[in-house]
């Protein structure tokens, strides 16, 4: 490189900005395609994946917005009310003016989900209440001045200097000359606020004075959101509130606390002298389990998305949710992972899309893809059921196979279309039964249906027995709800079912008018033993009498209501057996269902410790070197040094003598080098072995298996327990 300088010397050349073309050409797709199974249609699959994922994200965002709406609306109301009462000259509110209005937002322990809520909250606030919103997190506010700095930065939109050595550099970079003398204090903010509101007032002189809306806009509140209250240093928070209360007369502040546990944390963190400065109102958000239920309802239990999860994968995702984090966002990420893996690893996933597109894609399948179809277990089962002639053509003739595939894809879509409404019907019927034989949540029922034929389970039988005891009005409301569910679906079978259901419902309703006489007749028979019952006080006799009553009722001719009830239940039963068979029974189900639960588990619920132990105790697992193969529980002496050292240290107690360890190590390594066991050299420690051993030991220390101890100088302490 050349310079224009005349003198000799060192010159610094900054690298010119990297050309952007290179970066932008490497899109998501370029990461997707390499290593993809069946590369020929990977572009199509990537496009399908991308479309589907976009749809899922927009849908989930809509769901989340919908769920948060209520709490956010009430919060917005609160902020509006606070800013309006401040301007009232009412006696009582004047007396109260020194309090800082505070909203305590209870969000539950699923901290990863909170970001989205806060984001939409601050967006909404900025849109409809006030432009001055600042949100702060605990990790960026270790001390009061940092908190102050963040708040001021975010409100004033400019850099603020802090009088601190550490921040000098940073501050110098950020601060423009204009803000050089800006200091981190609320009085600066106060001045800024006053000039700001004055400016906006003078700039809009055209509006009429005195209108209430105008008044509100003159003094928009300054909102400060504390995203994670629990993590804040109580000292910092107390000081900050004390300072705020000094300025509350001039600066309409409003605090929002995001609380993950319970509102009593406020009392734990703030002493009475501080909390008496706040006027706290509580807002409870929806629990995360309800949130998950809605997401599952909208995302999984719908035929709209062609991509499905099989029972095991669902189980993994749900158990991660329930057992580990309660985070809906992570659940959706899990679905995304499964989606991506499915399109990446299953070449036949080109058919996993809407019906029309899938039918089109079938016609474009290559010979290789068709061979893959023939390999599918579900397809083989299908073939075996066919006549021998048909079998031959299916296996030989590609064109015929394509036609059959189209039909099969249609069947699969039909299956999904009918499956979900019937599932919902069954859930509405059984979710209110005592002890919930088929689960309280629809996801539990869905899981059972995915795994086996639900109508063969014991729980289903007991649920049906309980349903046979339903009273008339209960039955009618339940059936009506079922009819509503079925009515929303456009398919022939569901329409037929709807007609049947409505028929039953009208009959049930007519019972009231037509059969009142018979009902009273039945009552007569029943009342007489009941009268007898009242006389009996002995428990045993009572039991006997009740049993007899039961017997007599059973043998009795069924009343018209009971007949209708049985009919209704038979209808439901037939629907269940027809439509709720598990997806594994469907041909070509592999196209739509992702089934590798182990893969999902490995990615989402990583076990670093077990993998380190696996690597150390059986290096073959990762290195794939034939010479490292060994029987269970032993390590080949050709293994890496650290594996040998690890294996040897397992045989020791809590304290390990380093010299003994070294000797043992030298023996093993000498054997590996092929030194004759009887020779003098065997097991001696030379410099190289010593160095290798020291390295292995320090690596083990780094991994946290051992540490140096002060109890004995030439020993190290084991940090793990167990061994051989």
């Amino acid at each position, binding site marked *: 490189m050349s310079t224009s300088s005349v003198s000799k010397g060192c010159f610094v050349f900054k690298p010119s900005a990297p050309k952007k073309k290179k970066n932008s050409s490497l899109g998501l797709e370029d990461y997707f395609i390499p290593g993809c199974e069946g590369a020929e249609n990977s572009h199509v699959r990537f496009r399908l994946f991308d479309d589907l994922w976009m749809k899922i994200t927009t849908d989930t965002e809509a769901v989340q917005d919908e769920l948060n709406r209520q709490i956010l609306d009430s919060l917005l109301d609160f902020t509006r009310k606070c800013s309006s009462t401040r301007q009232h000259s009412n006696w009582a509110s004047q*007396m109260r003016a020194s309090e800082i209005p505070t909203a305590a937002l209870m969000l539950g322990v699923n901290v990863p989900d909170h970001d989205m809520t806060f984001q939409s909250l601050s967006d909404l606030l900025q849109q409809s209440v006030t432009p001055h919103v600042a949100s702060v997190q605990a990790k960026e506010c270790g001390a009061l001045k940092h908190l102050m700095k963040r708040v001021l930065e975010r409100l004033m939109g400019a850099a603020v200097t802090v009088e601190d050595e550490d921040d000098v550099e940073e501050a110098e970079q950020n601060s423009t000359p204009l803000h050089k003398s800006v200091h981190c204090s609320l009085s600066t903010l106060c001045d800024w606020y006053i000039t700001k509101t004055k400016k906006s007032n003078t700039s809009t002189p055209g509006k009429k004075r005195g209108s209430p809306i105008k008044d509100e806009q003159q003094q928009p509140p300054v909102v400060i959101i504390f995203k994670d209250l629990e*993590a804040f240093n109580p000292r910092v928070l107390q000081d900050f509130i004390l300072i705020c209360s000094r300025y509350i007369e001039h600066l309409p502040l409003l605090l929002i606390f995001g609380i993950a546990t319970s509102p*009593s944390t406020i*009392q734990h963190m703030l002493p009475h002298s501080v909390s008496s400065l706040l*006027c706290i109102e509580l807002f409870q958000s929806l629990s995360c389990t309800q949130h998950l239920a809605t997401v599952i309802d909208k995302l999984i239990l719908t035929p709209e998305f062609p991509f499905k999860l099989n029972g095991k994968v669902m189980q993994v995702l749900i158990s991660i949710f329930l*057992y580990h984090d*309660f985070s809906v966002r992570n659940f959706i990420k899990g679905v995304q992972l499964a989606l991506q893996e499915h399109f990446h690893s299953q070449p036949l996933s080109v058919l996993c899309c809407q019906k029309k597109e899938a039918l089109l894609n079938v016609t474009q399948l290559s010979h290789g893809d068709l061979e893959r179809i023939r390999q599918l277990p579900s397809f083989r089962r299908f073939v075996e059921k066919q006549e021998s002639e048909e079998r031959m053509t299916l296996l030989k003739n590609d064109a015929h196979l394509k036609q059959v595939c189209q039909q099969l894809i249609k069947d699969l879509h039909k299956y999904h279309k009918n499956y979900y409404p019937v599932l919902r019907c069954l859930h509405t019927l059984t979710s209110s039964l005592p002890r919930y034989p088929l689960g309280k949540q629809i996801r539990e029922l869905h899981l059972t249906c995915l795994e086996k034929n639900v109508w063969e389970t014991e729980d289903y039988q007991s649920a049906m027995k309980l349903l046979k005891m339903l009273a008339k009005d209960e039955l009618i409301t339940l059936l009506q709800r079922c009819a509503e569910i079925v009515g929303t679906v456009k398919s022939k079978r569901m329409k037929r079912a709807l007609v049947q259901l409505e028929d039953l419902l009208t009959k049930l309703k007519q019972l009231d008018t037509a059969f009142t006489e018979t009902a009273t007749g039945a009552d007569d028979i029943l009342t007489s033993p009941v009268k007898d019952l009242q006389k009996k006080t002995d428990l045993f006799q009572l039991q006997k009498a009740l049993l007899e009553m039961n017997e007599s009722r059973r043998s009795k001719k069924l009343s018209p209501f009971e007949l209708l009830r049985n009919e209704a239940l038979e209808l439901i039963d037939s629907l269940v057996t027809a439509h709720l068979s598990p997806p594994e029974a469907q041909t070509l189900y592999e196209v739509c269902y992702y089934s590798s639960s182990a893969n999902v588990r490995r990615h989402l619920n990583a076990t670093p410790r077990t993998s380190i132990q696996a690597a150390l105790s059986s290096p073959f697992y990762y290195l794939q070197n034939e010479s490292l193969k060994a029987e269970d529980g032993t390590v080949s002496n050709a293994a890496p040094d650290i594996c040998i050292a690890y294996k040897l240290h397992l045989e020791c107690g809590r304290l390990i003598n380093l010299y003994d360890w070294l000797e043992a190590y030298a023996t093993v390594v000498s054997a590996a080098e092929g030194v004759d066991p009887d020779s003098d050299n065997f097991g001696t420690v030379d410099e190289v072995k010593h160095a290798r051993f020291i390295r292995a030991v320090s690596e083990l220390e780094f991994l946290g298996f051992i540490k140096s101890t002060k109890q004995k100088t030439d020993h190290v302490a084991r940090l793990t327990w167990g061994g051989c």
Partner: protein
Amino acid sequence: MASLLQHPGYEKERLQRVAEQLPCREVQAGMLLSLMGQPHQYSYPSIFVYGHRASGKSHVINVLLKELQLPHATVSCVECVSVASLFERVLLSFFGCDAAALLPRSPSLSDFVRVYRQQRSQSSAKETRYVILEKAELLRDADANLLPALLRLQELVEDNVTVLLLSEIAWDTFRPNTGCFEPLLLHFPDYSKGELQQILALDRHPSYSAEFYSSYINILLGVFYSVCRDLRELRHLAALNFSKFCEPLAEGKVKESDTHKLWRNIEPHLKKAMQTVYLREVSSLQWEKMQQAETEAGALRGLSAHTHVELPYYSKFLLIAAYLASYNPARTDKRFFLKHHGKIRKANFLKKNEKTSNHLLGPKPFPLDRLLAIFYSVVDSRVAPSASIFSQISSLVTLQLLTQVSHDDQLDAPKYKCAVSMDFICAISRTVNFDIVKYLYDFL
């Protein structure tokens, strides 16, 4: 009374105005005034004013200085995140922003003195300048030389300046061990019941007569005086409950003079307020709403009523394990978590110092290993030691359900304490069908 506030250096009307604004504090104001002397006279270098919360310290001083138009700088020490902002504010209010800009970045005390002297030589004090430091107790946490220097600021900057320190605690706790210039001490005693009555009656509702409001205050003090003497709190309570007090009047049931009936009406109400509003269980806004809709008063629950916390399944067990580790002596783990522990009777088991209940002593720290060992034996299914188990421990720490005790390196066997109460853990263990009492050494 106004005769107390007389000083030849100041105009009569001004002193009159001051006296009107300072009811029941004439003695202290007069004392201050005589300490301050005439405006041009030098005053005592530093005065330490102390008294409980809301005993009128800042109010008296601010009113005095404002009404008499003396140059002063008021600084609250809470706001001074660094000494720099303290210096800056003082310079700003005495000499304007040019002087404040002269301070270097992160100034030392001598920088401040230098700049002050420089400015003083340009515009020397014709009247005594006052530096008022509120919440002065925080100065003790600042540099060791700051407080002694402020106490003799007059001498250091050679100017007519007086430092007023305001604090809620007595001077004895301030005195640095190296010794310092002793300030003049001025105590503000608490208001007596009569004085409180007099002051509270001042902010009467414009649409009611003064006697009526005064009788209301009388009733209020009768209920609250035994628990609370804080003027601010009382004023707050008075404002909140006044509308309820007026209710029978508005309905036309009672006349203003019928105090007994009014008392009967308001008394149960005030009792309730004592339990909720005073403890800030219920915010003032909610309290007002409650008063408007009397019927559903029971439905509104205070802050401490919501103690239920939803936790993921394994987090619950981790918390239970942490609780057990915190409250059981480590020696007893064998007895609780080993299958064939043999019969160990409590009597043989007890050491001398363990005879007192562990629950009275509070949680003890435990290492991570022990927590995990108990966790694995408590949880009924096999759990893989996955990353999310460990991250749950740290998220329990951020939720302040556990606290980390040692601040050492994370790798080197971190120690924790369980920070939840017995009730809380019982509620948690009930949801997972775990009988925690059976595993607690104290309840053996």
